[in-house]
């Protein structure tokens, strides 16, 4: 569905990604050390940075030069790393923001509020005052309200309490079952591989390894990443 082919990209003069091609699949996991370029790859997928080489194709359409909001309209959704929310807006406003202009917007919000009870509880509070984990839940909820075809998640369980991690993992699996594709960056290799149909390992911006998902791949990946 989302094809990232032969990508080069970076910041200013520093090149971060070197000829990266990501395999396609229902759930694709991107693994790698700190600073390997995982976030850069996802930012590129959503359109926050533009590739200097290579193509981004979604549903057969080349979206390489589309602005992020246009990509969202095409069915991509993005949960950035680091529990990001609109701090000056209330929790509810954060959700309304994306629900605005959608049919059944209210229902979509309610669905997410019941998925994440903490958000329901703090609906009227400024998102900037939420705890890190609460903000992360809010970010995922916000992404889901756009009813995406492909969900891009950058370390969604980072800083989340185990019970909710389990829920989020469950949710991701469920979404995949519902037919939503997922591009996932996750340090939690075990879960990532369990969920993933395919995975790719990045090291210093190069693809060092790709393969099929499943728990069995864990040891291969650990070995690949230990280099």
């Amino acid at each position, binding site marked *: 569905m989302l094809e990232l082919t032969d990508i080069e990209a970076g*910041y*200013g*003069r*520093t*090149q971060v990604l070197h000829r990266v091609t990501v395999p396609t699949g229902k759930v694709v996991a991107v693994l790698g050390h700190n600073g390997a370029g995982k976030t850069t790859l996802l930012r590129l997928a959503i359109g926050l940075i533009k590739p200097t080489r290579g193509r981004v194709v979604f549903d057969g359409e080349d979206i390489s030069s589309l602005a992020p909001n246009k990509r969202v309209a095409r069915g991509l959704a993005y949960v950035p790393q680091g529990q990001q929310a609109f701090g000056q807006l209330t929790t509810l406003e954060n959700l309304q923001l994306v629900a605005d202009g959608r049919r059944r917007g209210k229902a979509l919000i309610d669905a997410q509020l019941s998925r994440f009870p903490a958000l329901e509880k703090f609906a009227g509070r400024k998102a900037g005052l939420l705890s890190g984990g609460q903000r992360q839940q809010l970010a995922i909820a916000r992404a889901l309200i756009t009813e995406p075809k492909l969900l891009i998640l950058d370390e969604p369980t980072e800083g989340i309490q185990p019970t909710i991690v389990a829920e989020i993992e469950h949710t991701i699996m469920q979404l995949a079952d519902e037919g939503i594709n997922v591009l996932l960056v996750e340090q939690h290799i075990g879960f990532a591989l369990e969920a993933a149909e395919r995975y790719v390992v990045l090291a210093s911006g190069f693809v060092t390894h790709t393969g099929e998902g499943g728990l069995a791949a864990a040891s291969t990946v650990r070995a690949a990443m230990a280099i």
Partner: protein
Amino acid sequence: MTKKPWISLSGIGLFAVLLLTVAPLVLSDHWLNNLGKYCCWAIAAVGIGLAWGRGGMLVMGQGVFFALGAYAMAMHLTLETAGDRVPGFMVLYDPLAPLPMFWEPFRSAGFTLAAIVLLPVVVAGILGYALFKRRVKGAYFAILTQALAVALATLISSTIRETGGDTGLSDFKYFFGFVLNDPANRLMVYLIVAALLIVCLLVVWQFYRSRFGELLIATRDAEERVRFLGYDPANVKLVAFVVSALMASIGGAMFVPIVGIITPAEIGAAASILMIAGVALGGRASLFGPALGAIAVGWGQSSLGSTWPDGWTYILGLLFIVVILFLPNGLSSLPARFMRRARPKPPEPPAPAIAAVELEEVRS
């Protein structure tokens, strides 16, 4: 920036030679005097570079400190010229009233010199302490300081008997005993200004290469983080702010004998912004940028302003736009840009990170 101190030092040396020996030889009296005036602005600009370029405090009211030095000096020179008489302009409004109390001490040369140094230190100290402790920063700080400059200029304009009002103070005959009209003495005054500019450059040079310089940048980029390293950022900023105020005051004080007149217009909103313009043009965070930028803007005003007055306003406007838009680090960043093009892949500073901080500042 701290790696090659001798490059900067020899730069200052070269600058000193140009200002102190070459300029007096090649320039006419008129242009030498003008250069002296630009140097006054340059002194203030060096301070702005420290506070704004390095410290991130957009000081839009340096006119306030420029005024402190300038009016202290002007009051002394006015009294020196008037002798035991009440200055002429005061007679117009109330011929019988004595000299206002606050003028009296300025009869003394020593007091005047002390005031030029201490007044800005005290005023900036109190103001800065109050503002920084209350964590006033970003756009708030800029607008507040600008408002102060406007308020002071209006105050001076409206206290016509006490300060000369909008007309300002002028027509000085002596400068600490020296007859100001004497060309030799005028040269001396020029040399004093030029030397003071060099001294200010040396002072900030040492600031920039010192640990304080690094701490100042750290405070600029992440003030709260500095707090969590055990420093009070208010104090760090205060030092830079006070030093920049002192420089503005010195620039203002020398402006008076050089130009022969000081008025509220030299300290109000427009003047304060023009000081910033030079700094932005030259390069706010560089050592020489602010001084050179101020001199360039001064020169542009004198020369382009006369050949093409309407045009100069447009040029000045465009200068602001083009420089800030395309050359945020000023003209002094041009050489570095070319050098970088020649060398392969040097690290780029991560721009968005800084921007985020700045945005927070504007909004917080």
